[in-house]
């Protein structure tokens, strides 16, 4: 192996990095001005402070709400905990984002946005979708049409990518939301507006109030451009500063007391905790990999642990009620303890035991899995 072999192993410099260098060089004459990366000339940055009262109310903006996305996987009383956020908006020149609902319960953060295009000739595409995808990705009665066929059939002349995510560059989010990563789902409404639902789970989010700066973005689509929408230099961005009051949703907890070795995947499960709420049942797995060196401050990008709970039909619930656990493996630098957090459909009762499956993934085609029984004593 030579230095060239290693150089070749690196990905080609991505467009975002190249743009960042060029932008910095462009800005060096403006020494008194702060450097702003990836904010295009046309970008709009709007900050709105949203104070959430703990008063629960139903959403009135219309269209899908959080309970619709949960598809019966939560208990009915969860609806009473979801807080209406009607009226808080973020504007770009291409789209308007209206926050509809939000919920923060110490383990998870959930919110829905209504997104409307400002250009009647442009069809809104949520980040991650392309016109060739099935329309059923966005609405249940999508038949066999593709998104592109549907948009063309309705006379749209082009597309606008839209999305919302945590603003990872914001100092506001440092410390308060380390490692918080949102999964986004989208629903196409009858008037072709979109409802986005963002859900994330994380440990140690803290007590009381959680402050998050969200970034809403919209970008005209160049369908030959393969870079993700957030990295487009032309993305128009608007931010929302959210102050979320914690809602106490926890009904009951159960904790396993025995460590369980999983030699096939090279780890020891230290404990599993089940946390019952009307919205979802969280499961928190503390574990120790045999090989400590797998974490050294840098992130390995093509190797991962994947946790799943095996359901009564023998199938693994990888993507459950509200979020995908696979992106939520965390490590505590101080204790060396690794933690994964996931969700299961909400239930009136917590089980006495569950089947936990762990897979270690060396590359997308090489998975090794092991399943163990985790027991929860009374």
């Amino acid at each position, binding site marked *: *192996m*030579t*230095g060239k*072999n*290693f*150089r*070749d*192993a*690196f*990905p080609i*410099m991505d467009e*975002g*990095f*190249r743009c*960042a*260098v060029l*932008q*910095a*060089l462009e*800005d*060096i*004459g403006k*020494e008194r001005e702060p*450097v702003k*990366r*990836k904010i295009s000339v046309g970008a709009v940055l709007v900050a709105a402070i949203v104070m959430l009262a703990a008063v629960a109310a139903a959403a009135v903006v219309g269209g899908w709400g959080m309970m619709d996305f949960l598809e019966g996987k939560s208990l009915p009383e969860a609806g009473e905990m979801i807080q209406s956020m009607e009226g808080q908006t973020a504007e770009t020149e291409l789209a308007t984002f209206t926050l509809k609902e939000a919920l923060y319960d110490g383990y998870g953060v959930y919110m829905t946005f209504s997104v409307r295009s400002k250009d009647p000739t442009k069809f809104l595409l949520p980040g991650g979708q392309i016109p060739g995808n099935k329309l059923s990705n966005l609405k249940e009665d999508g038949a066999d049409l593709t998104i592109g066929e549907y948009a063309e059939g309705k006379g749209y002349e082009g597309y606008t990518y839209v999305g919302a995510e945590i603003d*990872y*560059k914001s100092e506001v989010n*440092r*410390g308060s939301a*380390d*490692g918080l*990563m949102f999964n986004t789902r989208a629903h196409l409404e009858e008037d072709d507006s979109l409802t986005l639902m963002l859900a994330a789970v*994380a*440990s*140690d989010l803290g007590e009381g109030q959680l402050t998050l700066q969200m970034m809403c973005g919209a970008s005209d689509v160049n369908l030959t451009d393969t870079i993700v929408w957030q*990295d487009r230099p032309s993305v128009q961005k608007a931010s929302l500063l959210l102050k979320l009051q914690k809602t106490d949703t926890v009904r009951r907890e159960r904790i396993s007391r025995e460590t369980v070795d999983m030699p096939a995947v090279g780890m020891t499960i230290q404990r599993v905790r089940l946390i019952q709420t009307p919205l979802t049942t969280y499961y928190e797995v503390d574990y120790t990999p045999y090989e400590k*060196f*797998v*974490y*050294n*401050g*840098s*992130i*390995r*990008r*093509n*190797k*991962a642990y994947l946790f799943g709970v095996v359901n009564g039909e023998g199938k693994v619930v990888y993507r459950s009620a509200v979020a995908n656990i*696979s*992106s*939520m*493996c*965390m*490590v*505590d*630098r101080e204790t060396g303890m*690794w933690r994964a957090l996931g969700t299961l459909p909400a239930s009136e009762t917590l089980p006495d035991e569950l089947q936990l499956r762990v897979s270690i993934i060396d*590359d*997308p085609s090489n998975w090794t899995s092991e399943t163990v029984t985790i027991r929860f004593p009374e």
Partner: protein
Amino acid sequence: MTKDEFARRILEMSPMLYRLCYTQLSQPADREDAVQETVRRAWEHRDKLRDERYMQTWVVRILLNVCDTQRRKNGRLLPVEVLPEQGTEVAENAPLLEALCMLEEKYRLPIQLHYIEGCDVAEVSAMLHLPQGTVKSRMARGRARLREMLKSEVFEG
């Protein structure tokens, strides 16, 4: 140094800066912030660079400091993994990069700078503020660890 000359040198260095950011910071946004901050600091303090021949050493030093600050800002909890998307292409030499990223930083940086970026030991010593002997011993240990991980000789010849 003129702005044009500064920009030319930075652009020449940018693949190297990218590779260094890649092994130092996990998030693309953090890497982009880091390189922007590095360029800004380098330009603002360019009068401190007495000999332009050492610009690369100086810029790398700034970048490593910025990356270090960025990592500390990111807090003690970090997302570790994001699953590869189905169908994600994996580079032929991906195991090499994986092994490199698994090395402790004290071994990885001297190896990366010397063998991969082509800096001589004196430059690496200046970049990392380490005696040359320490640089050499860390490279030797790092090579041994890479050899163990990859089951193959590394940087032979």
